[in-house]
């Protein structure tokens, strides 16, 4: 499903034996961002021999001097028969439609919010029209980040999340969890999907203008407990220890990309992360020097 001029990237996880992500760190010259994504199946799916139902995708669009990076992660609903396929389709549509919409170069925060919502409607419309049978059978959450030269746009439906690295205090880098959509239920395993009838009402958008952002992390809910810090009541924050470690390893990759992938996969599949959450796990990172 590669498109545009070959700068588009996706995880191609259809084959069961391709469990680890493909390396992205020699990214396209047009983007200053180094991008890397990985989805691994959770403990339950691994035990039951069920493929991962998470997906991620990234794309770089626009002219070389004003490249826009689109990052997307999705989590297929565990109770739906084709949700893994739905998650892969959702992230591909997202990078395509958000990329196209971002090329208009919005001039205000309001215009960014409008652009994000329009792109979401495009994605939803095409998703529903192109899924065979009941679109709910392909239900997936969707979290998107658009990295433009002067702004960062974020749209999320469901329980994915985004952490930004920007600024420092006392020599320590600071990490910021972007606001998430309101919870739809008291239970952590119930959420809204791209295909939910009222999805547009649950969509959350953000526009951030901060040139100091040099690290972005997107994830599905499988890493919520590891990557976020709890507090009595909202808002929660980022677990700086986790965000710092996983962004630093992309800032300064080792000599062997394959070994780096194995190390990250080992972390995501580790018992200590499984103990927090047995779901599939996805980590899509972008850093720039």
């Amino acid at each position, binding site marked *: 499903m590669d498109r545009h001029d070959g700068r588009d990237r996706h995880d191609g996880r259809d084959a069961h034996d391709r469990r680890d992500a493909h390396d992205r760190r020699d990214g396209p010259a047009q983007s200053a961002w180094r991008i890397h994504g990985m989805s691994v199946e959770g403990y339950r799916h691994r035990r039951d021999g069920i493929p991962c139902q998470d997906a991620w995708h990234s794309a770089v669009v626009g002219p070389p001097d004003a490249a826009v990076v689109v990052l997307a992660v999705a989590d297929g609903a565990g*109770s739906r028969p084709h949700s893994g396929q739905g998650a892969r389709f959702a992230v591909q549509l997202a990078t395509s439609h958000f990329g196209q919409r971002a090329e208009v170069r919005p001039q205000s925060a309001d215009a960014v919010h409008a652009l994000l919502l329009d792109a979401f409607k495009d994605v939803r419309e095409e998703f529903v029209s192109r899924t065979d049978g009941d679109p709910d059978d392909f239900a997936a959450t969707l979290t998107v980040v658009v990295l433009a030269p002067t702004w960062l746009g974020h749209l999320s439906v469901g329980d994915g999340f985004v952490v930004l690295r920007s600024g420092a205090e006392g020599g320590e880098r600071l990490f910021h969890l972007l606001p998430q959509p309101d919870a739809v239920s008291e239970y952590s395993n119930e959420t809204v999907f791209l295909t939910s009838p009222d999805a547009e009402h649950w969509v959350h958008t953000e526009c951030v203008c901060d040139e100091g952002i040099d690290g972005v992390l997107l994830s599905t809910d499988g890493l919520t407990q590891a990557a976020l810090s*709890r507090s009595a009541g909202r808002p929660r924050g980022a677990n700086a220890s986790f965000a710092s470690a996983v962004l630093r390893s992309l800032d300064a990759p080792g000599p062997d990309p394959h070994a780096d992938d194995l190390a990250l996969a080992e972390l995501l599949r580790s018992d200590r992360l499984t103990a927090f959450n047995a779901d599939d796990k996805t980590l899509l990172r972008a850093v720039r020097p």
Partner: protein
Amino acid sequence: MRHDRARSRTVRTEYEDIEFENNAQRLPLVLCLDTSSSMSGPPIQTLNEALREWARELHDDVSLSHSVDVAVVTFGQQGVSTWKGSRQLPPQSPDSPFVPAHAFRPPQLFAEGVTLMTEALELAMWIVSARKTELRRSGLQYYRPQICLVTDGLPTDGTGHLTDNWKRVVPVLAAEQQARHFRLYAIGVGGITPRGEEVLQAFAPKFNARLNGFPFRQLLQMMSASATAEQKGAGDEVFEKIFSQFKTQRPAWES
């Protein structure tokens, strides 16, 4: 491959230093067990053995062991009691009876006394509600709790006489289940009478069963299967399927 994995551990030691909070998603699970005198002899022995076996299985499940919190409520000896693992809590104890599954040690139960089933269910609902409040205060996320009522008899009052006081809890249970505050399983075992079965049907219209003998092991395995389905975000139809297969006493949820 073995070589690569070993190498990756040494190359990427920074991941080993990540600090995590103890914030796994929680799944409160209450066993509400009849330990009245009718359970004495082989039934209570079977129950104790099944609890020990189940505890071992929970410990071995990487996911359930860290997310399921087990509390035990008994009705029989000394009226209604809560147990924090193997320790019986004193009445009105402020201590939470929930124990993480990886640390759960089953109680040694004895069968004696009357069948305060209504009071036990009310206590089970109360501890579930208190647990949710506690989890929310701690900023912890949770799944829908599960309560499993197991009995071989009919509700009695404190003097051992049959009573209709169970009817007072039926509308409460209906509203609580409608609001999805927990899943209730009501299981009749041994020689439970048709009237006893009617009580269980009133408590849990969807998830009630009358089983031959005392298949506690299968029952506890069904609770684990239900907990696993909850973690997967399964739809109601999956829970109904698990329960229906359990009712026929086939371990088909393993398929």
